[in-house]
C-alpha cells in the first residue's frame, strides 16, 4: 500500500505534522491486553461494587425488571453499529424504530409530538426551558425547589450565560409546589414554570392547577418526569406545554448514572422550536411508506449558530431499548408494573410508620418514592444498614439542609416483601439504639 501511495514509510504520511510535535516515544498506556485480560480487569472492578446489597435508592435512577429480549435486540450489529440515519434508504430500521419511539412517548405523556432524543432527563429539562424562552421571548423562569437538585444544577449552568433568570419556588407542607409563593412570584415576564411530577420527594403535583396558574400569565408549564413507569398509572401531564422526561426506567440499567435517554414532548404548534432529532413519515417516488429525519432546519448541521440546540449525537440506542422494552410490556404489562410499584411503596411506608419515631413527611399522593422523617440522622441509620448489606434511602439533607433526618425511600417491583421487612427491622434497631441512654 505504501508503494501504491508512493511513499517510503508510514512516517512519511505524517510529514505535515511539524517534526517537533511528533511523538518519538511510545505512549505510557497500560496494555495491550487480550480479550480475556480485559474481561478479567473489569470483573475485578465489578467486585468493588454494591453486588449483594439491597438498595432503596431512586432519586432519578430506578431499578426495574428488564427483559433479555431488549438487550438481544439492541446488540444486533445492524442497530448497534449504524450511524445517525441520514441515508434513509439504508436506515429504515432505525428510522421506523425512532418513529415508534416518538409515538410511544406521545402516548405516555399525552402530548402531540416527541423527539428522539436528548442526553438525559437533566439536559431535556434544560432544553425545555430554553425552548420556552424561545417561544415566549421571556427571560424569567420559576423552578420548583422539588425539581431534582442535579437537574436544577444543570439548568443553572446553562442559564448563567444565556441571560435567563432562574428563581426557586419552595415546596409546601404537603410536599407539592407552594402555590401561594408561585402566585406572588409569577408575572408577565415569566417564560416557564418548571415542576417535576412525581417530584423529587415522590409527591405527585397538581398539573392542571399549575398549568392554569402559568397560563393565566402567559407562561408555559414545563413538567419533568424522572420516573416514567409512573405514567402507567398516574394521569399524564396533558395540560403541560412541554414535558421533559428521563426514560431510564424503560429497560435501561442504572449503569452508575448513564447512558440514559431524555425526551422532550410538546404540542404540535411548538414543534419547530423543539431541539433534537425527529423522524417523520414520508413516501418514496414509488409511493411506498418510509421514514426520514425531518424538520432538520432546526438543527446545528443546517442552521449552525441559529440552531435550536447544539445537540448532535444523542442517545439513539437507549431510545431503541426503551422502544423494545415498552413494546414487550405493552399496555397491560406497564399497568401491572406500575401497580406493583404503587402497592409495594405503600406497603413499605405502612411498615416504616409502625417504627416508633418514624413518620411520613409529606401527605401528598405518591407513586413509588416517599419521604420519611427519622428520629436521628439518616447517615447514621444508613451506616448501620450498610453493615447488613442494605443501601438505605437517600439522605435528603445532602441536597436540602432544611430536611435534616429526612430520607427518600424508593421501592419498585424488584424489591421483595422480605427485603422491605428487613429494611424495617434494621431501621427499628437503628432507631432504638439511638433512643437508649448513653
Amino acid at each position: 500500500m505504501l508503494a501504491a501511495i508512493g511513499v517510503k514509510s508510514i512516517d512519511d504520511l505524517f510529514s505535515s505534522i511539524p517534526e517537533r510535535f511528533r511523538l518519538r516515544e511510545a505512549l505510557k498506556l497500560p496494555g495491550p491486553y487480550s480479550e480475556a485480560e480485559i474481561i478479567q480487569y473489569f470483573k475485578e472492578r465489578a467486585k468493588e461494587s454494591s453486588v449483594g446489597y439491597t438498595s432503596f435508592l431512586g432519586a432519578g435512577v430506578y431499578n426495574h425488571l428488564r427483559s433479555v429480549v431488549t438487550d438481544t435486540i439492541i446488540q444486533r450489529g445492524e442497530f448497534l453499529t449504524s450511524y445517525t440515519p441520514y441515508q434513509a434508504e439504508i436506515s429504515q430500521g432505525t428510522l421506523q424504530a425512532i418513529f415508534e419511539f416518538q409515538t410511544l412517548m406521545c402516548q405516555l405523556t399525552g402530548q402531540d409530538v416527541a423527539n428522539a432524543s436528548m442526553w438525559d432527563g437533566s439536559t431535556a429539562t434544560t432544553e425545555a426551558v430554553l425552548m420556552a424562552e424561545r417561544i415566549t421571548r421571556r427571560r424569567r423562569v420559576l423552578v420548583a425547589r422539588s425539581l431534582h437538585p442535579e437537574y436544577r444544577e444543570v439548568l443553572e449552568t446553562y442559564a448563567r450565560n444565556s441571560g435567563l433568570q432562574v428563581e426557586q419556588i419552595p415546596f409546601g407542607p404537603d410536599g407539592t409546589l407552594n402555590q401561594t409563593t408561585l402566585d406572588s412570584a409569577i408575572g408577565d415576564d415569566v417564560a416557564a414554570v418548571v415542576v417535576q411530577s412525581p417530584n423529587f420527594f415522590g409527591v405527585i403535583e397538581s398539573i392542571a392547577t399549575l398549568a392554569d396558574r402559568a397560563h393565566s400569565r402567559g407562561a408555559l408549564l414545563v413538567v419533568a418526569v424522572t420516573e416514567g413507569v409512573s405514567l402507567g398509572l398516574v394521569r399524564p401531564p396533558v395540560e403541560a406545554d412541554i414535558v421533559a422526561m428521563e426514560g431510564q426506567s424503560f429497560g435501561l440499567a442504572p449503569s452508575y448514572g448513564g447512558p440514559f435517554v431524555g425526551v422532550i414532548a410538546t404540542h404540535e404548534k411548538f414543534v419547530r422550536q423543539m431541539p433534537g432529532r425527529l423522524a417523520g413519515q414520508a413516501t418514496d417516488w414509488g409511493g411506498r411508506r418510509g421514514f426520514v429525519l425531518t424538520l432538520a432546519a432546526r438543527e446545528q448541521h443546517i442552521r449552525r449558530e441559529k440552531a435550536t440546540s447544539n445537540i448532535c449525537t444523542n442517545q439513539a440506542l437507549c431510545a431503541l431499548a426503551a422502544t423494545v422494552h415498552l413494546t414487550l410490556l405493552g399496555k397491560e404489562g406497564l399497568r401491572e408494573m406500575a401497580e406493583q410499584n404503587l402497592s409495594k411503596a405503600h406497603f413499605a411506608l405502612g411498615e416504616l410508620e409502625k417504627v416508633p419515631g418514624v413518620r411520613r413527611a409529606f401527605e401528598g399522593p405518591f407513586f413509588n418514592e416517599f419521604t420519611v422523617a427519622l428520629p436521628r440522622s439518616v447517615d447514621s441509620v444508613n451506616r448501620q444498614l450498610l453493615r447488613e448489606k442494605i443501601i438505605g434511602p437517600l439522605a435528603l439533607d445532602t441536597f436540602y439542609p432544611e430536611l435534616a433526618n429526612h430520607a427518600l425511600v424508593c421501592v419498585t417491583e424488584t424489591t421483595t416483601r422480605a427485603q422491605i421487612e428487613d429494611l424495617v427491622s434494621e431501621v427499628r434497631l437503628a432507631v432504638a439504639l439511638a433512643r437508649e441512654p448513653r
Partner: protein
Amino acid sequence: MSQTIRNASRHVSRNEGLIFEKSSPGKRAFDLPPLDVPAVEPATTLGRNHRAEGVTGFPEVSEIEVLRHFTRLSTWNYAIDIGMYPLGSCTMKYNPRVNELVARLDGIATEHPLQPQSLSQGCLKIMRLLEQCLLEITGMDALSLQPAAGAQGELTGLLLIRAYLESQGNARRKVLIPDSAHGTNPATAVIAGYEVENIKSNSEGQVDIEKLRELVTEDVAALMITNPSTLGIFEQRIAEIAAILHAKGALLYMDGANMNALAGVARPGDFGVDVMHLNLHKTFSTPHGGGGPGAGPVAMKTFLEPFRPIPVLVEKAGGELTLEHDRPYSIGRVKAFSGNFGVLVRALAYTLAYGPGIRQATEDAVLNANYIRKNLEGVFALPYSLPSMHEVVFSDSIQKPNGVGTMDIAKRLIDYGFHPYTTAFPLIVSGALMIEPTESESKEECDLFIEAMRAIAGEASSEPGLVAHAPHATRIGRLDEVTAARKPRLRWSKEGSS
C-alpha cells in the same frame, strides 16, 4: 443492475408494518413475578391523579412478535458489521464486542450513581484509569468525563474558557470559528453566551494566519479549531495560531472529532491547545447505535482545572477515590450523575486492548485514507492538495457537468454495497465527498470501495441517469423529504396513518 457489482446482490427482506398496526387487545410479551404485598386500589390511592384507562394506543403483542418485528427492522439497516462505512468525520470503526460484555457486568451495569462511594470504588477506578489514559493520549493536564457527547464537551470547554476569562476580569465577547467547522461549534458558542465570528479558510484550506492576526483582539475569547481540519488536513501552523491567540489573552479550543488521526502520533497538549474534547464514540470505538449514546470528555491545561464541572474525581490519601462536590470555582454541572458511564467503560476497554499500540491504529487509518486518495485522485477532483491524514475530501466538479452530484454518487454507492461517505460537508468544498475509511478496513475492502467509486465515476459519464436516480437496489427509493417537512407526520395514530 450493473453486472460489474461484485460486492453486493439483492436479497429478500420482510415487509413489516408499525408495531401499533400489529396490536391486538390482551396480548403481552412480559410477565412479572406475582405481587407479594397487599395490592392497593389505584383509584383510591391516587384519586384524581389516577390514569384509569391506562396508556391509550400502547401496543399489545406477543414476545415472538416483538422479536421478529425488531429483527425485521434491523435487516433494513446498513451497519459497520455489514461492511465499510466510510462516513467522513464520523470515524465508523469496528466496535469490539468484548466492550459490550464488560459494560453489562453485574457490579458495573447495576451500580446506582448515588450509592455510597465505599461501594463505588470499582466504577471510580474505571473512571480514574480512563482519565489517565486520555490525558496521556492528549498531553493535557486535567479532565472531565461528564459531558454526554461532543457538543456538550464543546459547551463545557467554552464555559471553562469563559469562567477563566471572567476570573481574569473580562469574559470577552466573541469566539472565532473557521468556515470549515462542524455545525455544533457555532451552535455551542451561542449557548455559551458568545457571538460567533467566522474565519474564511485560505486557498490551501488552512486557517488564514494573516486574517487571524487581524481578527484576534482583546474581545476574542477563543478560537475553536478542528485539527486535523474537516478537510482531513493538519493545521501546519498550529503553534503560530496558538501564539497569536495567547499573545492577546485568548485561548485555543480544539474540537477533537478527528483525534483518530493523532492518537499516539502527536498530542494537542504539545502544540498549544488549552482545552479540547474527545468523541469517545469516534476515536475510542464506542458504538454509534444509530445516533448515540456517545461521550465527550474535556481535557484541559492546569490553569483551567479549578473551573471543572462538579463533581470532580479525586484520590484521597490512602488511595480511596471520591467524587468531590465542593469546588468554589466550578462552572457547575452539565449533566446529572457521572456522565455516560457505560460509554466510558467501553472506551477504557478499547484503550486497554491497544495500549501504546494505539499508534498503529492511527497509522493504519491514515494509510487507508491515503491509499483511497491515491486511487481516486483524477477520477474525482481533489480541491485541496495538502497531505491527507485520516480522511480525504474530494469534490463532484468532474461529474457535475453531467448532472451528477455528490448526493447521487453517494446514493449509487449504496447499490454497490457500501454506506455513503459524508456528502456536502465541509461547507467550504462545493459538492464535497468526505471519505474516512478508518483503520478497521483491510486492503481488500478498500479495493472494493475504490472499484465501486471508479465504476460510479464511469457511469456518471456513460449513464448519468442511472446514478442520478440511485439507489435502485434498496427496499425504498429516495423519500420525498420536502413534503415530509411541510406536513410533518411525527407519530402513528389510529386515524391518521396510511
